[in-house]
């Protein structure tokens, strides 16, 4: 029997799906690139006309930016000013995330309470806060704080807690000269404690007796911390070591920097491509690659090369430093790394034990301070002194705003997560005679946490991004500092690039941490 094979017709080009798809994609890609090139060149020519050329000199030049609060109120360079803004943003974000999580969890549980009035209070809180724009709330807290009584001459003195329209001042613990050596002790205590706790866990598994791993670990850490509190000066021998490292780094030739980065980029992309090939390998040899797979390989390979090229280009870029000499980026990077080791050497110096700042802070890892109201300046204006923690009005407004706002959303997430735990778990723990507090803590919340974590991470991202509203109440966060720099120097594009880099890095970091925990918490399923 003969099978008649029809002559295969060649598909015309305009009906070939692969050709059509790739043509469309390439056309769109070219159009997008063309759009950006047009806008970019237009911006460049407009820049030239307005006497402001795109550049990064402002990073190292004095910008004349005055900052209301932060680690440095009159920074000597644009980079330093941005640094102050970043630290301010992180202060709000980190403390806000901690408090919002606690408050949100409490309110979420309260909303599930069987107690009618507690339940209703939680509902009112959530429905009020969630439905009013955050900006309105931030303005409201600011207006409220501004209308507080002002400091008068009669207020002079030392306080535990003081409220006025200059801000909230309260007693607080600060780090001091011996902090970093002491932290080494604490970290060592943590590592040893973890080892001990693992041993105790094994003991519990083997014998069935309670191991009390957590308590042992806490005890070990406390012992290390107490010993370190007095013994930290013995780490003083680290100072010459770090000094030597700093010197060695200073003597590195600048060409090392781009070589290291370029090698890293190329090796990483090569490794990725090799792993990818390996993952597609079947017992019969290499698996079949789809268009998509080839695209990925080409893309990663190209990115590696582009990054390597960029490493050389950026390293050679020369900028003028505050001191007035011209240095390449590579040299600056080496200098920064050297400075870091010098800072470490300084931190481990035993001289710190004798450092006394303004007669208040003395040697030792930590110091406890109370705020003071002083008459300052020639006009004898009552103001908070340098001691104690002073929360300014802008900080109070933005912090309270984002924290209470995010807490309302977290409360809803916690409530949903708890409700999603099967009811059988509750009934089983009640059957075992657990009290409400205990089964909530030991049975329900750990399981609910698995469901809560991904949306919780989203809320952390939102809180982090919402700190940028500090601009509206003149809180010196990175956006506010950036707008000031734009006003002073006209360099809008570079500042926007810095903003994006900062927020994207922060978002990536938060989602990386959340994803890591998420993977750890997931049930292992087959």
């Amino acid at each position: 029997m003969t099978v008649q094979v029809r002559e295969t017709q060649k598909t015309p080009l305009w009906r070939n799906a692969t050709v059509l798809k790739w043509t469309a994609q390439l056309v769109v890609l070219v159009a997008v690139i063309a759009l950006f090139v047009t806008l970019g060149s237009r911006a460049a020519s407009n820049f030239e006309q307005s006497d402001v050329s795109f550049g990064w000199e402002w990073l190292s030049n004095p910008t004349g930016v005055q900052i209301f609060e932060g680690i440095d109120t009159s920074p000597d360079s644009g980079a330093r000013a941005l640094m102050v803004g970043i630290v301010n943003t992180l202060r709000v974000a980190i403390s806000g995330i901690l408090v919002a999580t606690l408050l949100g969890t409490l309110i979420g549980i309260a909303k599930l309470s069987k107690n009618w009035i507690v339940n209703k209070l939680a509902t009112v809180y959530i429905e009020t806060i969630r439905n009013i724009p955050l900006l309105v709330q931030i303005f409201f807290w600011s207006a409220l704080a501004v209308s507080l009584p002002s400091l008068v001459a009669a207020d002079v003195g030392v306080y535990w807690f003081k409220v006025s329209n200059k801000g909230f001042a309260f007693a607080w613990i600060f780090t001091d000269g011996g902090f970093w050596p002491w932290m080494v002790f604490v970290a060592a205590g943590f590592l040893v404690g973890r080892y001990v706790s693992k041993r105790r866990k094994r003991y519990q598994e083997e014998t069935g007796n309670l191991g009390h791993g957590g308590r042992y670990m806490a005890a070990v850490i406390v012992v290390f911390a107490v010993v370190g509190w007095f013994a930290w000066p013995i780490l003083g021998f680290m100072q010459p070591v770090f000094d030597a490292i700093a010197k060695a780094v200073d003597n590195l030739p600048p060409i090392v920097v781009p070589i290291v980065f370029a090698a890293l980029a190329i090796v990483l992309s090569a490794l990725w491509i090799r792993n990818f090939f390996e993952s597609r390998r079947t017992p019969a040899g290499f698996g079949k690659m789809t268009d998509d797979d080839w695209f990925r390989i080409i893309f990663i390979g190209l990115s590696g090369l582009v990054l390597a090229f960029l490493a050389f280009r950026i390293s050679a870029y020369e900028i003028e430093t505050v001191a007035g000499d011209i240095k390449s980026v590579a040299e600056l990077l080496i200098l920064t790394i050297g400075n870091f080791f010098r800072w470490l050497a300084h931190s481990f110096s035993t001289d710190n034990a004798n450092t006394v700042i303004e007669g208040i802070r003395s040697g030792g890892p930590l110091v406890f301070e109370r705020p003071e109201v002083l008459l300052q300046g020639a006009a004898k204006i009552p103001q908070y002194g340098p001691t104690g923690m002073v929360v300014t009005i802008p900080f109070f407004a933005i912090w309270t705003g984002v924290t209470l706002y995010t807490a309302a959303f977290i409360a809803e997430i916690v409530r949903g997560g708890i409700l999603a735990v099967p009811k059988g778990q509750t009934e089983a723990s009640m059957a075992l005679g657990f009290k409400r507090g205990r089964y909530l803590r030991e049975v329900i919340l750990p399981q609910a946490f698995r469901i809560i974590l991904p949306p919780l991470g989203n809320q952390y991202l939102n809180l982090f991004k919402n700190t940028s509203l500090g601009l509206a109440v003149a809180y010196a966060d990175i956006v506010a500092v950036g707008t000031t720099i734009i006003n002073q120097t006209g360099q809008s594009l570079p500042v926007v690039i810095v903003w994006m880099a900062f927020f994207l890095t922060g978002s990536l970091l938060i989602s990386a941490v959340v994803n890591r925990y998420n993977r750890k918490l997931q049930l292992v399923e087959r």
Partner: protein
Amino acid sequence: MTDAMTAPELEFAPEPPPKGPRIWMRDNLFSTPASGVMTVVALVIVVLAAKGLLDFVFNPARRWDADTYNMKLLMVQAYPQDAMWRVWLTVGVIVFLLAASLAVWRIGGMAEPRKVATILMAFGGAVAFSGVIGPFSTPVQASLVVVGGIFIVGGWALKRFTGDNAKEPIIPIMGVIGILIVVLIAVIWVIKVPVPAKIIDGEVITDGAIAGQVQGEQIKVLRPIATSTTSPWTIIAALGLLTYIGFRVATRKGAHHRLKRALTGLWLLAFPVLLLLVLRDPYLDWEKAVQVYLPAFLFFAVLGAVVLWFVSKPGVGEVARVLGAFLLIGAFATILFPMPWVIRFLAIALAVFALAAPSFGGEGAKGIIGGWIITDLLITFFVFIVATESLVDVPGAFFLGGLSLTIVLAFTAIVLSFPLGVVLALGRTSTMPIFRLLCTAYIELVRGVPLITWLLVAFLMLPIALPSGVEIGGVMRAVGAMTFFSAAYLAENVRGGLQSIPGGQREASKALGMSTLQMTVFITLPQALRAVIPALVGQVIAIFKDTSLVTIVGLFDFLHIARQVIPAQSQPFSFLGSIKETLIFAAVVYWMFTFTFSRISLRLEKKLGVGER
């Protein structure tokens, strides 16, 4: 089967569970000692918070007249007084459409008398409670307690007289809302609001035009709401009620698909027509219309009809696609040559129609040609009315401000970001790598950076990147930034929906011989969108709240007027420093909008059964 389901007969009915306030309190407030402690603590919080709130609100130093006197400023900013009928017409049209839709779609079910009674009693209790702890004079306190008592007794009586029916849903919710509206309208005719006044020669002057010219002690007096506000509201409310009743009676029988379709079309048309034609009051240059727009319309109508008739003929097949692609390239090439914008828009629209026609045209070309003529007409008309100047005489650059600007910003951003978001979501889930890469990069880049940064980019950098001579107004820039921003979020929502569709749906549509485009438009997208409606409403709420950010870049939205304009006002009456009053008013208004939306979202969630599997 049925035997197993019936319960065994009981000799005695089971004793009903004990009821009463004491038992309720034992179960809900003092079930355990810890619960009792919490109850006491919570009660203290409630009393202190309520007392603080009442003391704050009814403090004589509060300048609530900053809100009542500046109500027009807060709503429409400087819209000219003699053109206010345009605003009222807009409100009237929206109320008409709302009432008609409520009636035609039969929204609003029945409520249980027990629930209504509980609400009445809770309201009465709150009134009486605030009468007791509030900072009022004794007669006011007594009357508040009495009013509260009347409500409590009314609620109790309702529960009592409905008896066994108390748990049956028998009270129509729309009827209750109707009564509430009538009561509200009656109230605004008699209620008195605080207005600022100046005492000049022992005479109380409330007229700003006179008071602005003289110095004098400023006081607050209570005056009825002006008839320029009360009469339009009364007419609009009456119109709304009549419309509802009329449509309800007219549509008593049968499904009214045509009516529903007509109403949907009216809703879609209402926004651009009301905003661009009624509120904006454009200068209609008929001469130019005859010279440019009419020929353009006619030319594209004829050209489109011919092209679409050709491409939707069965058997033309791939040639139609090639033709469509050439049309699209030609349409985008028009950017390179100077010509009226209307031609560019029409060319692009025609190319899209030509590309879509083979997939959606079906058997006859009649429908698609009709659709093209209507689109042609609408595009020409809107370009015609947008391209001219506004005749509304306002000092600022944009003819709206205050709450109306906030609503316009939110609505435009939502409507514009929706198609963009859907396209981005399709791109991100597409199998084509470059599209996927571009869409993913866009979504992640936009979402990773806060909205305020994008607004600053639009206000600080856009002017630099635009070709010289092209200027985009502040409101348009804010709309653009918010559209691009919310599109990224919408795309993620829609992607969730797209990923929730079982693969079998795609395989089935492929087996039926559908093209990818047909599968997306007729099979996957409708299901995906239906699955994420609650999330989309959530996004609408988020955008509405986010519009407040435009105050940072200096647009005169609702929040900007409440926070910056009114507290800085010193003439004709001084409201200096009244920021808390205006902010609270703004918060209440925002809250009412977002709370309504969130309730709608909850209802939709229940109705669609999303999340209950």
